[in-house]
């Protein structure tokens, strides 16, 4: 009896550890998704929530841009290849990696 119980207890804690492992991975993905969403949300003030502008608004639309095109545009603003009224000043404040993340969240998937 004692042996059986001990085995059960071990199995239970083993199961718990296993669950911990996979959940931790799932959590890392969830956490990263949240960080990425919150980074992309820095654009929403001017370009709309999730990059979707209020209809008829004069700020240039971004939500039709494929991910790769959006990243290229952001990098062009950052490096000075492209000028604008304000985007060239803002793009310079982000790392290349951050601009890539923003494009991956807000850009259309190819």
């Amino acid at each position: 009896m004692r042996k059986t119980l001990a085995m059960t207890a071990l199995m239970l804690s083993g199961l718990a550890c296993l669950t911990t492992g996979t959940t931790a991975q799932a959590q890392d993905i969830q956490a990263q998704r949240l960080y990425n969403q919150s980074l992309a949300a820095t654009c929403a003030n001017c370009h709309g929530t999730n990059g979707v502008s209020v209809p008829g608004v004069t700020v240039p639309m971004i939500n039709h841009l494929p991910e790769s095109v959006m990243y290229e545009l952001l990098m062009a603003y950052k490096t000075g290849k492209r000028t604008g009224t304000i985007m060239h000043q803002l793009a310079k404040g982000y790392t290349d990696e951050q601009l890539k993340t923003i494009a991956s969240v807000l850009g259309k998937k190819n």
Partner: protein
Amino acid sequence: MNRRHFLGQSAAVAGLAFGLNGQAQASSLKSAQIVVVGAGYGGATAAKYLRMFSNNTAQVTLIEPNPEFISCPLSNLVVGGSQQLSALSVPYAGLAKNHGVKMVKDMVASIDRQKKTVQLASGQTIKYDKLVLSPGIGLMMDRVEGLEEANKAGVTLQAWKAGAETTALHKQIAEMRDGGVYALSIPLAPYRCPPGPYERVCQVANYLQKNKPKSKVLVFDANQDVTSKGKLFKEAWAKLYPGIIQYTPEHNVTAVDAKTRTIKFEVQEDVKADVLNILPPMRAGDLIVKAGLADANARWSNVNFLNFESVVAKDIHIIGDSIQVAPAMPKSGHMANQHAKVTAAAIVAELSGFAVNPQPVLTNTCYSFVNATDVVHVASVHQYVPAEKTFKTVAGSGGLSPAPTALEGTYAWGWAKNIWADSLV
């Protein structure tokens, strides 16, 4: 070792594992009561993004006494008469309808930090697990002798919290005699909306030039110089409103006399004016001060910039104009919206059992109208610097417009409509 002891131990091990893995924590995201106070640019955005970032699972209550949102940005156009307040107003209905935020139309009278409750003016008590405070600024009327009474009587106006006073200020200007004097006083920084006063005098001058051209605009700034977009504003004043705007720095208002409409200064001689727009020194919203959360010079709240939690009160997050700012961080509506998103993501992360984002980013863009159509901007990007535990602007980023343009005027309206939707719809 007896059986019970062994079982107890293994249960504890398993329980620990579950506790750490977040399964138990995830339910706390669903069960936690999150209460947000103040539905301006900060609080409304926090409530909406708490719902969005939690996939609509977090329970979010938003407490706000006003029937609708009225934007402070662009409200100088109402002071100058080229816009109506209704063009800057947005209903709160979208937050409930589109995002499931529970709206409570009331004021928070006090906070019980031990019991983790807020007491409303109506007498109701609401429990919180996480509290987000976004009450805006408090006006320190008592720092200027006679101002409290003068403002109550409507002899002086602040119109710095957009609403009835904004319309009343335009009315006073419209009713002023031609050849009259409009005076604006600016307190020492930090105050809400650094370029706001300088934009306001553009709008007043624009109105007076067309309607009462013999009138004057006097600006008394307690600061050493124009605190934001200085060169651009000075160029606009000289080019667009020659002979109308008279700017004087280092003028600190100490008293007003409502009977004689006189402004008294620390050093200089008294000045009389027809319309007195006196902006007193500012501090965190009254609720913050009353709750003992204004730990920076008894005026602002120090926060942990990773999650905007007060450094003196666990589970109370403070955003927007009420905080002790990081270097070069303006007190603006745009910035409050950005604080809100970092805070919403951090609260969702904490309640889900994972670490908060170690590298948050904030931006600021601010458009100022120099007349009814032409605009200049200032922009900045603020990255969190872990070694210094603060936000810093990125060298080489941000900047100003070279000159006012009508194109940026259209962008200013686009910004407004999109940020209102981003915060409230």
